[in-house]
């Protein structure tokens, strides 16, 4: 079969771009790995989050803001196409602080970031002390000092998002192939060929959305493979009555009632396991935040690996030596999904990724020669 694009990786980044390209009438194939592969898309907490993103790169903060603005329409269209409810809501969110020093440092960072560019002046946020937060987070514990509130933040069910993207892609004719791992991609005169155990797949243009697989697949195409795994662990409670509490990176209650407790960063190589020590720490912190959870039963826990670039900001790049090859890596695939499906897909389709998003290329990681 003939196709315009071959996407390597069927996680939330690859599927959002596949969806965006298919909506534009492009013929797209997606090669995905197995259920047991490393999958950040299936292990994340589902925040659609703006505040604090892009501390070291204001352009990334702008994209987060822009994507948050696009999310309601994005979600509505996906649900209309597929019937899948994403459990998306944007009622605001709070990033908690546990002491005065943390609160001070946070506010300083935000003041600097949201004054960095004119577009970021639209970002609304406020530091609220414990008493003021209780309106948004009923039952908040005494251990919390306060937190930063932003009305731009929200949450969704990331598994329903993924499911909706698969369904929407299927209805748009995307050729999705699970359990088709790619051994390598080669540039040929007429385009690219991906080698898989099921045979070769060719396409005039190829997009790597391979998560940590970029380490292996990107460098041969002149693209950056500089992503590393950063493990998170998540603890899930039984379903509890809705507490009317806004989401936070530390803890959020899902639409079905369970609390997701997380927000740890660990260097554990490629180990996706959980550790008793970290789970204890997560449990203790959850009870410090909401003391009424002390008797909550825990039903599940898991570990998953974030896809982290050296500066934590997304990587979008077009290959110089191999025109037509692109590389997308980020650990913010849920928040940025609306942007990926719209502006980013358009920029790739029109081959303007380098001109529009040049700041995001892997060139920023290159060591400058001195003297």
């Amino acid at each position, binding site marked *: 079969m003939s196709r315009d694009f071959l996407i390597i990786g069927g996680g939330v980044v690859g599927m959002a771009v596949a969806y965006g390209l298919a909506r534009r009438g492009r013929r797209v194939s997606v090669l995905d790995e197995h259920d047991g592969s490393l999958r950040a898309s299936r292990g994340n907490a589902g925040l659609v989050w703006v505040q604090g993103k892009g501390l070291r790169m204001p352009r990334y903060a702008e994209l987060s803001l822009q994507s948050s603005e696009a999310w309601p329409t994005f979600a509505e269209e996906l649900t209309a196409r597929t019937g899948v409810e994403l459990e998306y809501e944007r009622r605001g969110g709070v990033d908690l602080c546990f002491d005065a020093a943390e609160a001070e440092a946070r506010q300083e960072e935000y003041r600097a970031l949201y004054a960095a560019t004119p577009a970021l002046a639209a970002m609304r946020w406020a530091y609220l002390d414990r008493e003021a937060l209780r309106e948004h987070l009923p039952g908040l514990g005494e251990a919390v000092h306060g937190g930063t509130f932003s009305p731009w933040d929200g949450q969704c069910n990331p598994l329903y998002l993924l499911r909706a993207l698969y369904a929407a892609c299927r209805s748009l004719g995307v050729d999705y192939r699970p359990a088709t791992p790619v051994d390598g991609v080669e540039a040929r005169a007429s385009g690219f060929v991906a080698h898989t155990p099921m045979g070769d797949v060719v396409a005039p243009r190829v997009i790597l959305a391979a998560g940590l697989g970029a380490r292996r697949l990107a460098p041969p195409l002149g693209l950056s493979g500089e992503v590393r795994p950063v493990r998170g662990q998540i603890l899930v409670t*039984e*379903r509890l009555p809705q507490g009317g509490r806004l989401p936070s990176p530390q803890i959020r209650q899902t639409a*079905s*009632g369970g609390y997701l407790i997380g927000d740890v960063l660990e260097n554990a190589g490629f180990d996706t396991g959980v550790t008793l020590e970290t789970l204890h720490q997560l449990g203790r912190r959850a009870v410090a935040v909401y003391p009424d959870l002390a*008797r909550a*039963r825990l*039903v599940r826990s898991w570990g998953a690996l974030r896809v982290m670039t050296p500066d934590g900001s997304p990587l979008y790049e077009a290959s110089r030596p191999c025109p037509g090859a692109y590389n997308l890596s980020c650990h913010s695939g849920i928040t940025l999904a609306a942007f990926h499906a719209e502006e980013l897909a358009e920029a790739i389709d029109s081959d303007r990724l380098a001109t529009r998003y040049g700041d995001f290329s892997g060139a920023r990681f290159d060591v400058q020669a001195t003297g």
Partner: protein
Amino acid sequence: MFKRLDNAALAGEVTIWLEDQPRRVPATLSAAAAVLWLDGGAGYRDHAAGGRRAPLCMMGVCHECLITVDGEPNRQGCLVPVAEGMRLERQRRSP
């Protein structure tokens, strides 16, 4: 469906309270097994999202056997051994 082995060891019985009714059950059963042994799987549990549930794996994995034990809801019944005087309540919308 689950069935008790014909040659299962006899280890005496205990009295549990199932929805406030005293019932005698073999002392070696789990709470979930005791309910199945007494009343079968029908009416074991109503799921919050609608639909009915009954124990499936009986080894702590599936969470289908959730039951209220001594006033604590959502315990995994297959992991809780019965004990004299234990109070069990099935989690049903209209028992």
